């Protein structure tokens, strides 16, 4: 049984070997949620270690004539929203008695967040990363190694996040008795999509409160980039019950699992995936390694189907333009992933807009500068 009903999406499409571990994780998660000590520890880590709450910044020069607010997860420790999830799962792993942590990473931000919490908690850490992504995101590979993690290169298939995730799951199948799989997005078998969404929903809770304080009203639209979809789901969760607030997810045009995908099964869950007529998973493409994934969290597929959220695409070039423009108008270098959200947000038919700035762009400098004309 899944914890949360995502309609026809979600589930546990994994080998039997993992089912008892998922049951154990689900029990542990339920107990943690009901335990004040868990929440107190998370709150203490968020405020004294991670840097929460993150600020809300009005980007006046980036989008003249609009009021675009940026939720600054780029200012979180390690430079992206991924730490919210990694810290929560690390506390959970310790409660479950697991001392070895594995993770997959695309852009490297989740790998860095995982390596960081493993250093902080004294866990052994192995991060799987596609060879192509290791090339694109070299500084993050170096950060993970400095933090004491072992980075294992995945050199087959697409050599990106899809293969890194498969390989992490194979490691988990092999070492499940000692190991916690610290999945980085709201994907995977139940209870992961719900668990990650809950740990990231701090973004939306804070942003809603901050925006109300700044403007005295709710935004017309909330915009966030969607790869696996964890920063978007975290931001959206703050506004799900506000029926008048539009929720807009922005996918990379070449990796639009929701925009051009079909129902399918990938990495343990039924969701909307890029696949051919036979169910073979298709290659995604994006300049942004964090969005370069042919699947998406099942809750996004559900929110799309029931019409609560809408999903649009942005091209590599549009993201690069927004990346440069935010740097030059606001003095903020965003990651290429939220640059996709920025590209759509500034032309949206709405005046008061909240954008999830999910991470900072230091990791992307080499890749972006190679594509941008001076």
């Amino acid at each position, binding site marked *: 049984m899944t914890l949360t009903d995502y309609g026809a999406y979600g*589930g*546990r*499409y*994994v*080998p*039997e*070997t*993992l*089912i*008892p*571990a998922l*049951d154990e994780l689900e029990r542990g998660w339920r107990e943690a949620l009901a335990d004040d000590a868990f929440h107190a520890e998370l709150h203490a880590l968020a405020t004294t270690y991670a840097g929460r709450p993150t600020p809300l910044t009005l980007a006046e020069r980036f989008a003249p004539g609009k009021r675009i607010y940026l939720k600054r997860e780029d200012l979180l420790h390690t430079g992206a929203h991924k730490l919210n999830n990694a810290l929560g799962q690390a506390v959970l792993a310790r409660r479950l008695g697991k001392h070895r942590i594995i993770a997959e990473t695309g852009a490297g931000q989740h790998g860095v967040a995982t390596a960081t919490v493993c250093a902080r908690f004294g866990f052994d850490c192995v991060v799987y990363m596609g060879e192509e992504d290791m090339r694109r995101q070299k500084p993050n590979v170096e950060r993970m190694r400095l933090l004491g993690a072992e980075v294992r290169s995945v050199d*087959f*298939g697409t050599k990106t996040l*899809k293969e890194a995730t*498969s390989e992490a*799951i*194979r490691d988990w*199948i*092999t*070492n*499940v*008795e000692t190991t916690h799989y610290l999945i980085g997005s709201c994907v995977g078998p139940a209870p992961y999509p719900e668990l990650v969404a809950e740990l990231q929903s701090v973004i939306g809770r804070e942003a809603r409160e901050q925006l109300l304080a700044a403007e005295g009203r709710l935004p017309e639209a909330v915009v966030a980039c969607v790869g696996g979809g964890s920063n978007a789901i975290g931001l959206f969760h703050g506004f799900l019950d506000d029926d008048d607030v539009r929720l807009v997810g922005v996918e990379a045009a070449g990796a639009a699992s929701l925009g051009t995908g*079909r*129902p*399918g*099964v*990938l*990495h*343990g869950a*039924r969701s909307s*995936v890029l*696949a*051919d*007529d*036979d*169910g*073979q*998973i298709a290659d995604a493409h994006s300049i942004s390694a964090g969005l370069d994934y042919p699947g998406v969290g099942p809750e996004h597929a559900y929110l799309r189907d029931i019409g609560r959220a809408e999903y649009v695409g942005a091209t590599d070039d549009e993201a690069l333009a927004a990346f440069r423009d935010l740097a030059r108008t606001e003095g903020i270098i965003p990651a290429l992933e939220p640059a996709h959200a920025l590209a759509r947000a500034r032309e949206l038919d709405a005046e008061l807009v909240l954008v999830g700035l999910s991470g900072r762009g230091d990791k992307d400098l080499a890749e972006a500068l190679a594509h941008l004309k001076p």
Partner: protein
Amino acid sequence: MKQLVIYLMAEPETPELARAAVDGGASIVELGFPFSDPLADGPVVRRAGERALARGMRTQQCIEVLARTRELVDVPLVPMTYSSLLEAWGWERFADDIASAGATSMIVADLPAGEHGDARRVQLVAPTSTDERIALAGEQTDGWLYLVTLTGITGARDEVSPALAGLVARARRLVDVPLYAGFGISTPAQARTVAELADGIVVGSRAVEVAEQGPDALRDYVASLREALETVAV
């Protein structure tokens, strides 16, 4: 007689290879329908799947290979694949089409007992499975129960998993169907050791490797496993 299950990836040559395996003593043939992201598989089967996909082996072509294999051998043929293929083809349509092509049941590696109860299939249990799950898989399974001998993915290992004996003992107590054990079995000595516990064995990765050398090599290899099984008292 102990059952000997041989796994082969579905490719154009597979019908002849399956016949060689049966000539060598295979009593069931599993036919892998390749999937782009095979979570339960180690490098050998994964690479074989990548090769098959590169050669155009999609669901329709795999069903055709199944039908041609059916014409050459008279042992049960069991397609083994992943949920994504059934999702795309249609769950009922997939079951109907493979049955029409001569399949006896199927195995879906990423579909544990309890999910899609409508899809009749051979269920798998693992050393990590609880007694409740073994009982559930035993109730839902189609014909026999696939015991995953180890906590891990497919692929040859040096030793037979020490977890197998306990798993067999629990399964004997909880379910009333034949138990065939697979994952990590590649040598005649391992075949004998496992067959002393279980009612049959499944050999995948090594069979896929040997099949690359052609039907004669595969027949000889399977015969060496069959010979080892003959020495086990039933």
